[in-house]
C-alpha cells in the first residue's frame, strides 16, 4: 500500500483505523516511545505530579501554537510572539498590580497583544510585505518597547490575578483548561467551518482562493490578531504563575519554540497543510523532551545535543506522513 491509498480507503476495523491515525500522525510513535523510555529510565516521568507539570508548561505553548498553526497553514508566519507574550504579561501585570480587577487586567494585556497582531496583519496581509521580515522586525521593536515602558521587573499582582495561573477547575489547572479549550476550538474551526476550509485554500493557492470569492486578506489578518491575542494571554498566564514578569527575558525565544511545535506537528511552512491534533503532538513532544532530559539529569550540553537531534528525528518521522488538510 502506498501513502496515497490511505486517503482513498477508509479503515473499517479498529486496528486499521488506529494504523491510519498513526500513519497520519507518525509523531505519535516517537512520542510514545519517548514517554516509555523516560518512564523506564527515570521511574517518575508518569507520576501525576510530573504530568501536571508538563501539562502546565505545555499549556501556554499550545495556546499560542494553535492560532500560529492556522497562520502557517494560511501561508504566513508570526515570529513576534515571544515579545508579544512579554508585552501582554507586562500590561496585564501592571494593571493587576495597580489594583484593577483581574478580568480588566487580563483584558488590557490581550488588547496590547491584539494591537501587535493588527500591525503585523496590516503589514503582511494588506500591504503584502514578507511576514518573516515584518514579524522579525516586530519581535525586536516590541521587545524594545516593552523594556522602554517597563524597565523594572513587575511583581506582586495579588491573589485575584493569581487565579489565572493557579486555580484548579475540577482538579485541572486553569491554564490547561484554557489550552484544551483553544485546541478544541481550533480543531473544530478548521474542520467544520467554511473559514477553516478557506484557510487551507489560501495557503495552497491564494490566486484560486481569491477567484473563488474568498477574502484572502481578512482571514489571515484575523489570524494575526488572534495569534497576537493568544500570545498576550500566554504572557498573562505566565505572569500569573510566576507572580512576576521581566520585560527583557519573558518569552525570549518563544517564537522559535512555537514555530517548531507547529512544524513538528506536520504543518508545512509553505502553507496549505496541517492539523491541530498534529500541533498538540508537537507541543507534547517538546514539553516531554525538556522535562525528561531534566529528570534524567543529563548534563547541559548533552541536553542541547539531544534536543537538536530529537527535533530532527521527530521531523524525520513526521515527514513520512501524507499531508493533511482536515
Amino acid at each position, binding site marked *: 500500500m502506498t501513502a496515497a*491509498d490511505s*486517503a482513498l480507503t*477508509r479503515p473499517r476495523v479498529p486496528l486499521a483505523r488506529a494504523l491510519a491515525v498513526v500513519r497520519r500522525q507518525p509523531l505519535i510513535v516517537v512520542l510514545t516511545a519517548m514517554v516509555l523510555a523516560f518512564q523506564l529510565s527515570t521511574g517518575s516521568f508518569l507520576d501525576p505530579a510530573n504530568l501536571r507539570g508538563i501539562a502546565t508548561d505545555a499549556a501556554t505553548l499550545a495556546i499560542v501554537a494553535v492560532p500560529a498553526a492556522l497562520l502557517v497553514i494560511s501561508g504566513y508566519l508570526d515570529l513576534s510572539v515571544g515579545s508579544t507574550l512579554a508585552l501582554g504579561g507586562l500590561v496585564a501585570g501592571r494593571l493587576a498590580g495597580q489594583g484593577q480587577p483581574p478580568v480588566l487586567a487580563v483584558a488590557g494585556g490581550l488588547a496590547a497583544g491584539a494591537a501587535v497582531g493588527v500591525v503585523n496583519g496590516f503589514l503582511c496581509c494588506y500591504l503584502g510585505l514578507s511576514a518573516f521580515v515584518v514579524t522579525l522586525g516586530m519581535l525586536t521593536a516590541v521587545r524594545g518597547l516593552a523594556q522602554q515602558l517597563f524597565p523594572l521587573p513587575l511583581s506582586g499582582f495579588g491573589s485575584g490575578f493569581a487565579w489565572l495561573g493557579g486555580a484548579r477547575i475540577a482538579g485541572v489547572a486553569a491554564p490547561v483548561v484554557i489550552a484544551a479549550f483553544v485546541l478544541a476550538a481550533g480543531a473544530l474551526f478548521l474542520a467544520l467551518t467554511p473559514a477553516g476550509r478557506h484557510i487551507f485554500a489560501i495557503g495552497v493557492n491564494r490566486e484560486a482562493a481569491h477567484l473563488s*470569492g474568498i477574502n484572502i486578506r481578512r482571514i489571515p489578518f484575523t489570524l494575526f490578531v488572534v495569534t497576537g491575542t493568544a500570545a498576550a494571554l500566554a504572557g498573562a498566564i505566565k505572569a500569573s504563575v510566576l507572580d512576576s514578569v521581566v520585560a527583557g527575558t519573558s518569552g525570549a525565544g518563544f517564537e522559535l519554540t512555537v514555530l517548531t511545535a507547529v512544524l513538528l506537528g506536520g504543518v508545512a511552512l509553505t502553507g496549505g*497543510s496541517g492539523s491541530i491534533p498534529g500541533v498538540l503532538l508537537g507541543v507534547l513532544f517538546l514539553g516531554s523532551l525538556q522535562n525528561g532530559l531534566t529528570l534524567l539529569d543529563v548534563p547541559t550540553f548533552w541536553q542541547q545535543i539531544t534536543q537538536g537531534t530529537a527535533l530532527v528525528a521527530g521531523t524525520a518521522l513526521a515527514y513520512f506522513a501524507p*499531508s493533511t488538510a482536515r
Partner: protein
Amino acid sequence: MTQVNLRTRGLSKSFGGVRALDGVDLTVPTGQVHALLGHNGAGKSTLIKCLGGAFPPDAGTIEVGGTSYTRLSPRESIDAGMAIIFQSLSVVGALTVTENIFLGQERVRYGRIDRRAQEEAAAGLLKRVAAICSPRDRVAELPLGQRQLVEIAKALSRRASVLVLDEPTAALSAAESDALAERVEDLRAQGLAIVYVTHLLSEVERLADAVTVLRDGRVSHHSAVAGHSRRELVEAIAGGPPEQTRENPGGHPREPAWPAGPPRLAVEALRGPGFGPVSLTVAEGERVALFGLIGSGRTRLLETLFGRRRTTGGTIRVGDRTVTAARPAEALAAGIALVPADRRAQGLFPGLGAQDNALLPSIRPLARTGVRALRAERRVFGALAEAVGLRPARPRLPAAAFSGGNQQKLVLGRWINEVRQLDVLLLDEPTQGVDVGARQEIYRVVSSLAADRGAAVLFASSDPEEVVSLADRCLIIAAGRVVTEFSGPELTEGALLSAVHDADTSTAGTGTGARADADADADADADAEGGTARTSGTSTATPPAEGAP
C-alpha cells in the same frame, strides 16, 4: 429581441506597453453560446479575467444582468451571477473535490459545513459532467482531466446567469467533451448567456450561435448568427487567407508500408502501477499516437518511459541499448525527452523568463568550459520563438505573463530546439491550448524532427483531428493496454472514435456502473470504489443519465 445578459463596451487593458485588450465590445444575450476565438495571445483570457475580477480593466464597462461596472472584484463577479472557468485551473489541490466545488459558497448548517449535503450535491454534479472521480477524492491526486471536470462542476454549482468557459476541453478527451457540450446546450436552453473560448473549430461548429474573433486585442470579426465556414474563421483568426491546409503537414507521405526504418524505441511488456503490459515499437522517423479516454493510462505510460515512475517489469530499448531510467535525467541521457501534459505543475517556471523556460535543459550543453554561452542562447531562443510562433518573442518576459498557448509553446520548445539531440520524443497532449495556425507550425517542427533527425515520436492526444494530422500510426489505449492500432488509410477520426467506444464497453463496463451507483448513493464506501474505477481507467462513453437524484 432577446434580453442581453452580458455586455462589455470599449474594454481595454494594457500590460506595460502591450495592449492586451483594445476597446472590445461583446454582447451576449440570454440563451446564446457565444464563441470567443483568436490566436494565442489575442486577449481572450485577459477579457475573461476582467470579467472574473482577476484584475481591473483600464477602461470600458462590463454590464451583467443590467448593472454596469467599471471594475469587479471576484466576489462581485460571482454575486453578479457569473460563473467562470479560467484557463489556468483554480482548484485547490489539498482540498477534496466537494470542498473545491463549494469553495467560497459552502453550505452551512448551524454554523458548520453541511458536509453530507455538499457531497450529495457534488456527486450529482460530477455525474452530470461525466467525471469518474469521487466527491471525497483529494484534487491533488486527480489526473488533469478530472481536475478540469471538477472546475466545470464548480461553475455549474453556482446559480449563474452567465457562464464563461476558457478552453474547457483542452485537457479533455472526446467523451468528456461530448458530455460538456451537452451540458452547455442544456444551460443555453435554460437561458444562460455563455461565452465559450476554444481553439477547436469543431466545437465552434457544434455549439456556437455567434462568434467574435479577437486579433491583437481588437475585435476583428463578429457574426451574430451561426453558419460561417471553417475557412472564414481561420482567416479571421490568422488575419489573412490560410495556407493550404495539409492533411499531413510533416510532408511524409503516409504509406501503409510504414515503418520503413529500424525500430528506434522498442518497449517490451512494460508494466507499472495501473497500466500494462504494453509492448510497442516506434521506428526511426516514425510518429506514433496514443489515443484513448481520459484515465486510460497514456500519461502513466509516457511518464514511465521517461523515468518519472517506477516500472514493475518489462524492458525499454532505444536503438540497441537497453534503458533503465530511474530518473528523468537518466532518460534524457539515454536520448528520451518528455513534454508533460500538466503544463502548470510539470512544465512551466512561471517566475522565470521565456528564454530560461525554453532553454533550461540546453543551457549546459550550450555552455563552454562551464560558462553560459549567452549569445548562443539568445540565438537558439530566437530561432525557436520563430519556429513555434511565440508571441511576444521576448526572452526576458516572465513565463507567467504569456498567454496559455504561448506557455505551451515554451514548454514544447524546451525539447524541440536545435540543441537537444533526441532519439525519442514523448509528447503528452502537445498542442493543448495552441491556436490553429501555430498548431500546424508545431506539427511541422515535430515532423521535421522525425524526418530529418530520425527521432522516434510518441505522443498522446485526446484530439482525433490531431492524431490524424500528425501520426503515421495510432495505438488505441484502454485500461492501460494497447487494444488495437490503425495506420495508413484506416487512420480516420471516425475509426478512432468508434475504436475507443468499443474498447471502453468491452474492457470494463462493470466498474463504471458500480461507480455511478456509488456516487448516486453517496455511499461511504465510494472512496474505495473510486480507487479501482480510476485504476481500471474507464469512463462512460455513453452520455450519462440525466437528472441525478
